[in-house]
């Protein structure tokens, strides 16, 4: 639990601003099929403002934390620490404890790295339905899930590289042949990210361009939740000394080959509502992650769902 300090008058202005912005978003309408995806995004932004943050800000304004204060244990952030805030802020600031159950519903994306990891392990967080796997059958359909991350923040990172690989990495510095491998688990919180499900047929394709998309089966949804991604990077190195009897190891050249891949899963706050995409949006940029279960590791820039 942290501590919050706020200026009541300005938070009230924020409440009015959120209400007005949400109302404006609600009023934006179009029937053009090309703009369906944009309208979905506007609906998602409206939800964020009107259903997530407006009630939360309202509950902060309605909070009786300052009038019904109960002292917490020593060392726990509480209104006891108010003088510290008063020194750096105006005397008019209100400083209740920032405890989410008191100040409105749970803030999305407020879990720590350890809490997310624990909830994934125990099954509290439920992953999004996996992409359809072609199971290696040529000509069979499979799907990919692409995440365009408009608003993402890193919850935390953890080095998963085994001690053996760290030792090999260490000795690679002084040997003519080296191997370096690193694994990192990163957990992100995606806020209103657009996820696109595309269908493909398992057949030959260009590794850089990826497989062709089956028309008419593309679906999209806006989702918020935790993305757990394991990035793997490995480098093989071979060093050659130039000329005979060279003592200086820097007198030579090295050849190295690097490979990187990723795998991961997404744990949405609420089940995604996939809707057909009528017109693909141009110029939105490459997705941050694209996952499949069929050939994720074979297409440039794609990752594997799961693990």
């Amino acid at each position, binding site marked *: 639990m*942290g501590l919050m*300090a706020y*200026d009541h008058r300005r938070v009230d202005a924020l409440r009015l601003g959120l209400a007005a912005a949400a109302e404006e978003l609600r009023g*934006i309408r179009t029937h053009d099929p090309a703009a369906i995806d944009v309208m979905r995004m506007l609906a998602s932004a409206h939800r964020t403002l009107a259903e997530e943050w407006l009630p939360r800000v309202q509950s902060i304004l309605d909070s009786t934390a300052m009038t019904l204060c109960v002292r917490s244990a020593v060392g726990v952030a509480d209104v006891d620490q108010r003088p510290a805030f008063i020194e750096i802020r105006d005397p008019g600031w209100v400083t209740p404890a920032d405890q989410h159950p008191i100040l409105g519903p749970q803030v999305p994306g407020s879990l720590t790295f350890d809490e997310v990891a624990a909830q994934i392990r125990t099954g509290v967080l439920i992953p999004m339905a996996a992409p359809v796997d072609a199971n290696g059958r040529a000509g069979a359909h499979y799907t990919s899930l692409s995440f365009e991350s408009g608003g993402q923040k890193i919850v935390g990172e953890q080095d998963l590289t085994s001690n053996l690989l760290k030792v090999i990495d260490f000795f690679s510095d002084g040997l003519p042949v080296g191997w370096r491998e690193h694994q990192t688990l990163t957990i992100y919180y995606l806020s209103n990210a657009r996820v696109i499900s595309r269908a493909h047929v398992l057949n030959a394709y260009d590794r850089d361009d990826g497989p062709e998309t089956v028309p008419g089966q593309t679906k999209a949804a806006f989702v918020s939740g935790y993305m757990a991604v394991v990035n793997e990077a490995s480098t093989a190195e071979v060093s050659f000394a130039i000329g005979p009897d060279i003592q200086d190891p820097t007198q030579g050249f090295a050849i190295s080959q690097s490979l990187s891949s990723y795998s991961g899963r997404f744990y949405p706050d609420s089940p995604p509502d996939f809707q057909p995409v009528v017109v693909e949006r*141009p110029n939105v940029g490459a997705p941050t992650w694209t996952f499949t279960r069929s050939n994720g590791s074979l297409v440039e820039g794609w990752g594997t769902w799961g693990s």
Partner: protein
Amino acid sequence: MAFPQWRRGCASVGGMSTSPQVEQLRTRARQLRSLSGLIGNCRALTVYTLAGPDTWVGPTPRSCSDALLAVRRQLQANQQSLVDLARGLDRRADQLEQQLPIVKAS
């Protein structure tokens, strides 16, 4: 600006007379640009300024600020994609207009 007589003709391309089709594409492009303008002027783009450290500080305010900035980024991306869609529609309308004299001549 008045178009020459041959440009205002109603040649048939793909079962639909071209001029109404061109007009329809231009109208859609205008509407998409207007929608983009509406998004560009909406208060959701600037509401994040009300949620800064002058207003409040703490974990919840930080989450709020992050969420509002994310909404802003997404709105801007969608605004741009609407402009691109409108440009694509105008391009198609131009192409159809260029086909007109050929159709008329044949």
